[in-house]
């Protein structure tokens, strides 16, 4: 009996059956068919448990949502304390919590002047696009083929066909896509001087973290400057120290005009996202501050959690741990690749943002499954199933990192067999 007080199930089968019936038949079935029968139960740090009790190390961390671990004790304490006095608040009025968080964010985001809050990353991307349109009085947006910025009205239009066509939400006339790492294509798109913004994940996550070629991001920045286009950095997965500095764009030395962050800002506890605006992109806040409204965007208790998230991230120890984790896996994968060159063929890495490459177009799907069976949860890249997203949290301990590599090693024979099957 699975008893959660407000509701109960007799078994995992019942959960799955009702999940198909009432929640999402497609998604629920997909995972059963993929061999990943996870229903998350207890969770702590970087460990999640299936409701049946099976333990998994979480290397998916939902793109950085659990960057500081699941149910981080300091964050829980912060949220609990904040709840003694605060709630979501009223978005119409100035608020102590929202103002404090906005100040904290501006202080750790060179070149930015304002923080506009949202309940999620997709809405933050919409705010970014709207802000750029306001500032430039242009309508068109350029994004990267296989880029991903969420599924709200405007953000979804920047993304893959798979997510737009089904809802008749593609807008090819306003949303143009160019290949990643191709400056010539970018210039061709911008030189008509009718593009409001380029929106770019600093390292495209859902595409499997292909690394920007040396000079590419700066090249895009320069083109934007040249053609009067704003540069929107999507830091939803690359922010929060995951690349080794607070924001990924800092690591690559490029200055965006505005950028968005989400996931990790929530501490995994209370949804919050942000669009950071430079002076120019923030112009509309002066003309009509209520032009964009979100009742739950910047909920006050969430602001407290986010303040603590920023504080933890800026501790020297966190910085050190981030680097330790990245160095450890750099070395660990170099070794894995040496020993299993027929299976694991490459590692794309910037700090704790990693993509593991396999020698098969669907290799990462098999890897997700083999790892899942061996006690590790890491998700393949939806838009490049050759690459496994490998995203250790910045606070991961040495012991757990060692365990990950050991388990990865132990999963190789199974993975090899699965790939052989697929090659058929």
């Amino acid at each position, binding site marked *: 009996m699975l008893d959660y007080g407000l509701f109960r199930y007799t078994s995992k089968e019942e959960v799955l059956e009702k999940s198909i019936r009432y929640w999402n038949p497609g998604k629920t079935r997909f995972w059963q068919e993929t061999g990943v029968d996870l229903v998350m139960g207890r969770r702590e740090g970087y460990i999640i448990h299936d409701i049946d009790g099976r333990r998994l190390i979480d290397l998916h961390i939902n793109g950085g949502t659990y960057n500081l671990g699941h149910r981080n004790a*300091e964050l829980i*304490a*912060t949220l609990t*304390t*904040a709840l*003694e*006095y605060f709630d979501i608040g009223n978005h119409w009025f100035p608020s*102590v919590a929202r103002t*404090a968080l906005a100040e*904290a964010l501006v*202080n*750790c985001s*060179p070149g930015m002047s304002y923080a506009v809050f949202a309940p999620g990353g997709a809405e933050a991307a919409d705010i970014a696009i709207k802000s750029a349109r306001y500032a430039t009085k242009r309508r068109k947006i350029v994004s990267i083929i296989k880029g991903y910025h969420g599924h709200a009205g405007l953000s979804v239009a920047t993304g893959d066909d798979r997510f737009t066509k089904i809802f008749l939400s593609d807008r090819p006339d306003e949303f143009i896509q160019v290949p990643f790492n191709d400056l010539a294509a970018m210039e061709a798109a911008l030189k008509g001087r009718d593009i409001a913004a380029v929106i770019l994940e600093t390292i495209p996550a859902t595409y499997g973290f*292909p*690394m920007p*070629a*040396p*000079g590419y991001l*700066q090249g895009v920045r320069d083109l934007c400057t040249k053609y009067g286009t704003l540069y929107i950095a999507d830091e939803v997965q690359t922010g929060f120290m995951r690349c*080794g*500095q*607070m924001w990924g764009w*800092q*690591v*690559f*030395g490029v200055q965006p005009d505005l950028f968005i962050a989400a996931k990790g800002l929530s501490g995994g506890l209370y949804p919050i996202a942000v669009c950071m605006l430079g002076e120019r992109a923030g112009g509309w806040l002066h003309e009509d501050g209520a032009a964009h409204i979100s009742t739950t965007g910047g909920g006050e208790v969430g602001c407290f959690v986010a*303040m603590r998230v920023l504080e933890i991230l*800026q*501790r020297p*120890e966190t*910085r*050190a*741990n981030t*680097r*330790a984790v*990245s*160095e*450890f896996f*750099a*070395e*660990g*994968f*170099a*070794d*894995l*690749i*040496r020993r299993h*060159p027929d299976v694991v*063929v*490459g*590692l*794309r*890495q*910037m*700090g704790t943002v990693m993509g593991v*490459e396999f020698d098969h177009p669907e290799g990462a799907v098999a890897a997700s499954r083999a790892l899942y069976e061996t006690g590790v949860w890491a998700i393949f890249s939806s838009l490049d199933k050759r690459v496994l997203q490998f995203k250790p949290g910045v*606070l991961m*301990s*040495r*012991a757990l990192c060692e365990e990950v590599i050991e388990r990865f090693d132990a999963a190789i024979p199974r993975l090899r067999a699965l790939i052989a099957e697929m090659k058929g």
Partner: protein
Amino acid sequence: MDGGKPFLTFAQNPLDGVMERARWAAGAFAELDRATTLRIARAVAEAGHSRAQADAEAAVRETGFGVVAHKRLKNELCSRGVFDTYAGQDFVGPLAEPDRRIVKLARPAGVILALTPSTNPIATLNFKAVLAMLTRNAVVFSPHPLAKGCSIAAAEALAEAARKAGAPDGAIQVLREPTIPLVEAAMSDARVDLVLATGGPAVVQAAYRSGHPAYGVGPGNAPAYVHESADPVAAAKRLVDSKSFDNSILCTNESVVLADRVLADRLLEALRQAGAHVCSEAEADRLRALLWNAEGGFNVTGALGKDAAVIARAAGITVPPSTRILVVPFAKVQPEEPFAREKLAPVLGFARVDGPGEAGRAARAMMRHAGTGHSAGFHGRDEAALMAFARAAPALRVAVNVPLSQGAAGFGTNLGPTMTIGTGFAGGSALGENLRPDHLVNWVQIAQAADAEPARFDHISPWRAEPLLPAEAPISYSQGNPPGGPVGGKRAPVPGVDLPFGGSAVTARGPAAQDDMAALRAEIRALVLEELRAALQTA
């Protein structure tokens, strides 16, 4: 109105980051070879040595305990001195013992939590840091709150030296806000492998209760037996030198002189000549009232580690300003006599005994209260008397014809130079010797059959010269598998892109908020200090 004091108090656990960082450091450190290890240890020792004077001044300024010149000397001895003592020994391996068909590989303890006291804050810190570096351990310092400022500054300097010499990141760290609950939490933190406790009995007890292996040291209370075979003038000089050294702040200082009756008067005269003031009974009463409160607690703020003349003045005793120590004769060497207890101040008890038998009994009587397993001194030439006294006195080191403060701590004797004195089983400690580097490592013993051809490992080293996790390096960046073949996990620097891990300083707080935080911290600090003083006084 919202305001005034913060009406919400947010819990924080600053241990997490520190301990995790230490674990990474320990893991990387344990793989380093001996040459690199020695380079790191030497750099740390030299850093401590070069700061000796400034650190001594800072410690005296902050705590009010001791004498700058003497602290400087201890800081030097506990840095370069300790390094030189052990640099020739191998705490890394492999060490082959062909005759025994055994080869040994050092396995460091891992993460050491090192508590340092207010009395010898920097000497202890230098000592433990050098020992930890020699043995490839990561060390997290927990300084006594009364000596927090100077200890943090010194620990940071040592950490910087270690970092520059190629130590793994986080090999030396320090807890910045060492409140009592935090220190307790640190002691029982699962990521700690070994606790090195130097401090009061409460701290040592807590270390042993922590559930981790621990080396704690009990309090001292050393008898110094002056046998009739001694030269009273030489003995008096050593006693005064020792008692005045850093104003008796070392736990190895003499507490009570046990003088053979036949030379007692000559010894008292010699003590006077050497700079002691011998108190009258009335003066002794006034001094007793100054040094101990009604509950028997020692006067930490007014007397601990203070100059003899300062203490005398406070007790209303007129002495020349050159007075180096105060000597207090008393009749009964029993624990109920406060002067028979430990005095971390230049105040020396003085009692008359009839030969080694009574000296041994007196030693046991005074050490029953405190000091069991610690130190004792002997002055004289009679070996039989020395043996009888050493057998009877419940000390684990008996230093002969030397100033005990230094001698029992291994300075001027061949006991290991130390700031951590093991008081042994009788003193409630797992350690019966002066703490040495070899106490901080285990050895993997590779054992062949006793009649096997001895394996030769001389040409194999399992260690590396560069840490996996150097303190300074760009963060890992790799471009994966470009067309044309896998590059594996090999890291490619990004041309033209600066990738410092650190990068520009980021801060989440504005200047105003920082001021508020500073004020709040100052308030907390004052509270903690008050609490601590009270605790020390009633201990």
